[in-house]
């Protein structure tokens, strides 16, 4: 420990007062106690702690903007700054939902490794006081969290009984077709590479493994519905087309789903897929879903309305 570091006050005192060493001798006259510290030990403890180091700086990548809630999503750094939509449907859904709810937040480009639950998105709320770090909120609890925030517009539960059944169209039909089109269709391999693989690593072997893992995960997801491991492209796309048709019928000529005055969570969920399918920035090489979606003008218009309002 170098001597130019700040030194504890006690040590300074002991150095400056030469009378100190005689003190134990004086004390011993008053009577020996078992609690008396022996003189040699006392001298060591007088010098303790020897040095107090200055605090380390926070790492450069530590979050700096702590004044607004940070939503961690798949996106690029520049898109996050400009508030552009995420390229991942699950992230885009919650990003849009927070915008609809009017909760102030900033997007943070992140990866699955950053998430406590292992999947994005998650929200890191601002701390009420500096001392405590609030627990991150996974996407499954995001809705309850938004409703608990006083400043945000309360999102009403859909009153329609159908409101519970229709989301499974997105979870099942549309999501499977999305997985197929993005991860399994070889024509779009370059797109996966740009969105998910390149940000991870520049090493050729790591990238090869990552893209292989992504593809395997998508295949597992698609084939786990049956015990056999065969995926029929035509089936997957047909289910998606049927789902879009049902969604289109549900929307009918209304502005928002379930005939509501403003958009809600379900609008955000539908938008998350329709936007990414129709977005020209994605540069799809093979976009069969867009063909199925284009047949339903009201869904396309719904997506345009959402883009205008929020992005």
């Amino acid at each position, binding site marked *: 420990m170098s001597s130019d570091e700040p030194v504890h006050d006690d040590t300074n005192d002991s150095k400056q007062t030469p009378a100190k060493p005689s003190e134990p001798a004086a004390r011993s006259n008053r009577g020996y106690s078992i609690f008396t510290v022996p003189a040699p030990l006392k001298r060591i403890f007088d010098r303790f702690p020897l040095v107090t180091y200055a605090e380390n700086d926070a790492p450069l990548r530590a979050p700096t903007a702590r004044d607004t809630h940070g939503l961690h999503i798949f996106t690029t750094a520049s898109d996050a700054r400009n508030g552009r939509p995420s390229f991942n449907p699950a992230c885009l859904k919650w990003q849009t939902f927070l915008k609809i709810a009017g909760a102030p937040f900033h997007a943070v480009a992140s990866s699955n490794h950053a998430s406590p639950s292992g999947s994005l998105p998650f929200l890191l709320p601002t701390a009420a006081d500096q001392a405590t770090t609030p627990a991150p909120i996974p996407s499954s609890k995001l809705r309850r969290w938004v409703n608990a925030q006083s400043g945000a517009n309360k999102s009403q539960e859909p009153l329609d009984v159908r409101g519970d059944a229709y989301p499974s169209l997105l979870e099942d039909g549309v999501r499977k077709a999305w997985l197929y089109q993005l991860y399994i269709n070889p024509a779009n391999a370059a797109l996966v590479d740009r969105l998910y693989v390149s940000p991870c690593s520049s090493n050729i072997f790591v990238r090869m493994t990552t893209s292989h893992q992504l593809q395997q995960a998508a295949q597992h997801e698609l084939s786990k519905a049956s015990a*056999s491991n065969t*995926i*029929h492209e035509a089936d997957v796309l047909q289910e998606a087309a049927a789902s879009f048709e049902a969604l289109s019928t549900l929307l009918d000529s209304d502005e928002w789903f379930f005939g509501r005055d403003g958009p809600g969570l379900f609008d955000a969920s539908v938008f998350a897929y329709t936007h990414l399918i129709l977005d020209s920035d994605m540069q799809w090489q093979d976009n069969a879903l867009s063909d199925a979606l284009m047949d339903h003008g009201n869904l396309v218009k719904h997506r345009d309305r959402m883009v205008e309002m929020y992005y």
Partner: protein
Amino acid sequence: MSAFGLAEQEDEKFQPAVGPAFNLPSIDAECIAAIALLRAQHEDGWTITPNHDITIRLPYLATDDDKHIHGYNNIARYVTSHSNTVSPITDSQRADSTALSSFLTVHAQTLLDISLYVSYENYATTRSAYTKILPWHSNYILPPKFRAAARKRTEQLGVSSIDVEDVHDDLMDRPQGFDTGVGQEKKFEAETQKRASLLLGRQDTVRGLLRKGQGGALFKLHALADNCFEVMRDMLGEKEYFLGTKEPTDVDCLAYGYLSLMLYPQLPQDWLGKILRKKYPALVNFTEKMHERLGLATNADAVMGLASCASNGEVVEWRKSKKLQLPWQAPASAGFVDVTTTVAQDLLSRIPLLAPSTTIITTGKQKTPAWRTCLPATLLAAAVGLGSFGYYAFTTGLLIWPHGQQVHIFGRKRLTDYGHLGAALAGVSLLSQQASQARQEYGNSQEDHLNVGPVKVEVEVEKEDAP
């Protein structure tokens, strides 16, 4: 799908579905639904053949014009469009039907997975139902496969950890206070509790109540079941069928397929059936009405007995005598080749890295490069190839292991070549040599004499001195 019924329509179609179980026409919900649909919309002209080939997607329908239609949704589309008895439904009804079908495949399937496969005690019952309808070799292959698939589908719910076949492993891994759930009996704990309660008297705490039976897990399972059944109940409302039609439609049949498998099997852990009967009588009514109306009760033994029938006439006779209401055909019998290939395929699929990867059937022109689809196998092949080439090359001398330049010593090896010690030894041996030479000098032949070193040295010295 495990045992399938293949329905073969004499004049028009064949309809395969999983074989009968639990007094139902099949053990798979989609297959039951497909049979119910055909029953509801086509009076006759089709047959059912039990099948258990998982390489094809069941149920499948083989039509007389040689089309093969796989999967319930595709079959429903085909059957409905070819039926004259069904009144057309409106767009909004169609949308509801699509949404509800999706909902059922996501949520009801999860419940069935937990109830029939994930729960260990129930799985024992499911497995014995399979025993009746599967040939002997498939019994060792298919039910575990279905169970593995069911656990994979439900793993994100955290229920699969609730019971594991090895009770001891499970007990060790579990954090304290974590309740075992569906499934296994807690033999040890129950015994201890019985004794403890004798000593401590009876006082039920909430925690104690929850720990009893499958308490803690039941909470989670009830929530899952309510999520599914509430939506179904609301969609059904006061109507007779889900879409408000007079006749059952494809989505009614699908709902029946799932609900019947929840209601009718006699399972040791019957939480799912209990919830249905207790809280959702409307859904139970609906299921029973469909069951009665379509006459879907099936005796599995009678159907599997069809295998002994040699001719079509015999099949019809058998059906009559056993009161089989559905047009069952004899199940396809497994030949020796079938057995061998199935077993071999299964064994192969268990070797890591060599397991066949997912097959994708596509119309697209661009194919995924082969190395990408089977990266592990490619890597394995590359490693094995490189290793065996290396071995071959070194053993045959095609390549030589790198080493330093070899040392060649020309001429006779002398002791002095071996360093200091060698030199010392050489001195000793030289002395002894000289001594023995001196002794043998007179008796030795001329040739021996010439070979002696010291003599040569003398000659050299003489030559140097000469000039």
